[in-house]
């Protein structure tokens, strides 16, 4: 049963590598996501900070400007020179007013301010910016602001656009000895200075846009790369992130002025905000890559240290499957695998022992019995069964071996007995035991082959003939060896007998004793069989009745036959 890799799925090493890499990658991804989210939060916060910062900076700037305007306005309103000059303009002498107001604005430190004069009926009389009169003074008058002043708001401020310029305007009531004589609108331009003030406060590019026109801004906001985006974003709400010429910007539009008529458009460079996170991400990516490589390396090393013992265990299993038990697994680790290898080695040792026992068993009992024993299908507890017993005894062995070397005696005995054993086993019998120069064999026990008596008879004939052949081959100075053989069949007790430490499967009983007696009676080269045996195989053998004999241990005389031949063409008859 071989299991292929595809059936098994991934190898242990792949799983380990995947698990480690997966874990590292997961941690890395989570970390990167966290950094990304934090980056997003940081930018959102930066944008919020910039938006409020811009409003605050603009508010601060405007407060300064407005207080300046208010101061100048109060100064002008408190003096009677400006109202008097205005009166002169009402009477047609605007040049005088121009000189006077230019002088006074210069004195107040705001020479470029917007100054627009309006008569009590709301007609614009004269207006100037940067010290130059405006052709259309009406354009310089924010009527809504005038109305605020008339309604009593002496600190009214508002934004007013004159052409391409944006002014923060403040109306002042002109009075002469308690008599209102007209209005003066003072205004300071919302210009690059204002934009720079905001821009410096929040580190961003700033422009003031009204109706899609950028009226003032930081110098960079007017660059061709930035201006279109700032104008485009002026009327949008919410932020927008755009990369321009390698720099990342967040565009924000904050409303200002009455009815949010204008927008402070901010281009907030995100480089500084993002740089730190970019570095973190870069470091994280590098560290992650290193961690991945380390994890890969670790996984390989670890899996190797794990799979190498496993491989050697597998190889050992293969050896065991082939029946090689004498090559233990060499695993020196002290972990579970070491324990497993140790257990495996013990198991292998056990198998080796079992194999050795099996070998011994094969030698001491017939292979068939050994196999039957190992299968556990044979009951060895003891039973009455029909057993054919064969005894073969070397006639005149003691005088035969007189004067022979002991080694030679044993060699001779072994040669003869081996021959006999082989034939017995060949015929399906079991060599029960050797007793000196006698061999006892069983047919039909522990298992029957159906024609056990005939098999015993044929074995006996063949033994006599084979031994005769052996005699012919042996040195001629040695006397021939001949068996006397007795066969009986009958009920005997079969089972394992002996002590628990040493059991011997054998049979006991009268029929066995009779076979032994018959063996004793047989002359050299003779096979004697009992009447019971003969009856069993009378149609397949040729035997001559010898007659009844008194047999020791048996009350009645026993009828004995001498076997001559068996009905088998390959087995010649016995010579007489």
């Amino acid at each position, binding site marked *: 049963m071989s299991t292929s890799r595809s059936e098994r799925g991934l190898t242990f090493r792949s799983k380990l590598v995947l698990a480690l890499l997966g874990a590292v990658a997961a941690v890395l991804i989570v970390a990167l996501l966290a950094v990304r989210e934090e980056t997003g939060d940081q930018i959102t916060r930066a944008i919020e900070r910039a938006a409020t910062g811009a409003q605050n900076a603009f508010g601060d700037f405007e407060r300064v400007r407005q207080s300046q305007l208010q101061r100048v306005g109060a100064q002008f309103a408190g003096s009677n020179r400006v109202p008097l000059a205005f009166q002169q303009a009402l009477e047609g002498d605007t040049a005088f007013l121009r000189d006077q107001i230019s002088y006074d604005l210069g004195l107040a430190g705001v020479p470029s301010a917007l100054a627009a004069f309006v008569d*009590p009926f709301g007609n614009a009389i004269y207006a100037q910016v940067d010290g130059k009169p405006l052709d259309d003074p009406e354009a310089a008058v924010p009527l809504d602001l005038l109305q605020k002043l008339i309604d009593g708001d002496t600190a009214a401020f508002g934004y007013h656009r004159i052409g391409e310029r944006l002014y923060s305007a403040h109306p002042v009531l002109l009075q002469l000895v*308690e008599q*209102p004589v007209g209005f003066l609108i003072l205004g300071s331009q919302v210009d690059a200075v204002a934009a720079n003030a905001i821009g410096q406060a929040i580190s961003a590019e700033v422009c003031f846009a009204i109706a899609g026109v950028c009226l003032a801004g930081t110098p960079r906001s007017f660059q061709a790369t930035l201006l279109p985006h700032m104008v485009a974003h002026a009327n949008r709400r919410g932020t927008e992130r755009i990369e321009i010429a390698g720099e990342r910007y967040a565009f924000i539009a904050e409303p200002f002025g009455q009815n949010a008529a204008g927008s402070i458009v901010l281009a907030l460079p995100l480089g500084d905000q993002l740089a730190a996170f970019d570095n973190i991400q870069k470091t994280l990516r590098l560290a992650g890559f290193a961690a991945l490589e380390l994890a890969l390396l670790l996984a390989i090393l670890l899996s190797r240290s794990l799979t190498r013992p496993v491989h050697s265990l597998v190889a050992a299993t293969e050896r065991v499957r082939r029946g090689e038990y004498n090559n233990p697994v060499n695993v020196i680790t002290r972990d579970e695998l070491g324990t497993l290898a140790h257990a495996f080695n013990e198991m292998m040792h056990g198998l080796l022992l079992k194999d050795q026992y099996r070998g011994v068993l094969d030698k001491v009992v017939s292979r068939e019995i050994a196999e039957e024993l190992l299968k556990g299908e044979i009951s060895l507890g003891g039973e009455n069964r029909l057993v054919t017993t064969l005894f073969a005894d070397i006639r005149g062995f003691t005088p035969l071996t007189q004067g022979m070397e002991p080694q030679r005696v044993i060699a001779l005995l072994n040669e003869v007995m081996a021959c006999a054993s082989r034939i017995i086993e060949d015929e399906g019998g079991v060599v029960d035991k050797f007793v000196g120069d006698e061999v006892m064999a069983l047919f039909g026990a522990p298992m029957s082959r159906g024609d056990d008596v005939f098999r015993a008879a044929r074995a006996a004939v063949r033994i006599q003939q084979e031994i005769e052949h052996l005699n012919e081959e042996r040195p001629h100075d040695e006397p021939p060896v001949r068996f006397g053989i007795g066969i009986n069949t009958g009920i005997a007790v079969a089972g394992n007998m002996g002590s628990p430490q040493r059991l011997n499967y054998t049979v006991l009983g009268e029929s066995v004793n009779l076979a032994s007696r018959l063996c004793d009676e047989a002359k050299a080269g003779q096979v004697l069989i009992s009447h019971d045996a003969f009856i069993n195989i009378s149609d397949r053998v040729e035997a001559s009745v010898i007659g009844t004999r008194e047999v020791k241990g048996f009350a009645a005389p026993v009828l004995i036959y001498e076997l001559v031949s068996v009905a088998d063409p390959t087995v010649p008859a016995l010579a007489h």
Partner: protein
Amino acid sequence: MFKMLLLATAVLVTAAPARPAGSIVGHVTFRQGPLQKTANRYPTGSGGAARVIEPIPAVAYLVGAFPGGDKAATTAKPRMAQRDTAFQPGLLIVPVGSTVDFPNQDHFFHNVFSYSKPKRFDLGRYPRGETKSVRFDQPGGVSVFCEIHKWMRAGIVVVENPYHAMVDAEGNFRIDGVPPGKYKLEVWHIERGRRTVDITVPEAGSARVNIAF
């Protein structure tokens, strides 16, 4: 103060000779402007009651120089003092060519200046006891102010002839003894500016005129 005004003009008026002459009887209407006069915002230095600004009457006068114009006025030395943070008198009618003295009689500095076209001048600031003078050689109404005390103001009407009169509180004025003929009559008010009308004075009786500001 009003009494002094009358005194100052009486010198000129009484100088006219007795010849066939008509009169000019006029009425001046001051319509309410779009902007209301604000409350008195000028407290006195001592922290007492708010300062009351005396009104300055309008002056009606004939434009141009013509024979019979009296020279008697030139003998007088007109002066306009600064006293109690006010110009006194508040209104001065002087012939062309007159030099007016502006003595400071207060204990502190004053300044006298005018942006009016007939005479623009600025005498700067000067202390008590000092007097500065201005010669008025162009006819017309001149508003005089103090830069330091902005409620201080006075009118100086520079005339080319003796035919002039102050408009009373009801808006009426009368100029007698005017030789018959066609004239330009001008009315000047320190706050409201001036209006000019053509007028024909009969041999006898009076020419009536209504002038609205």
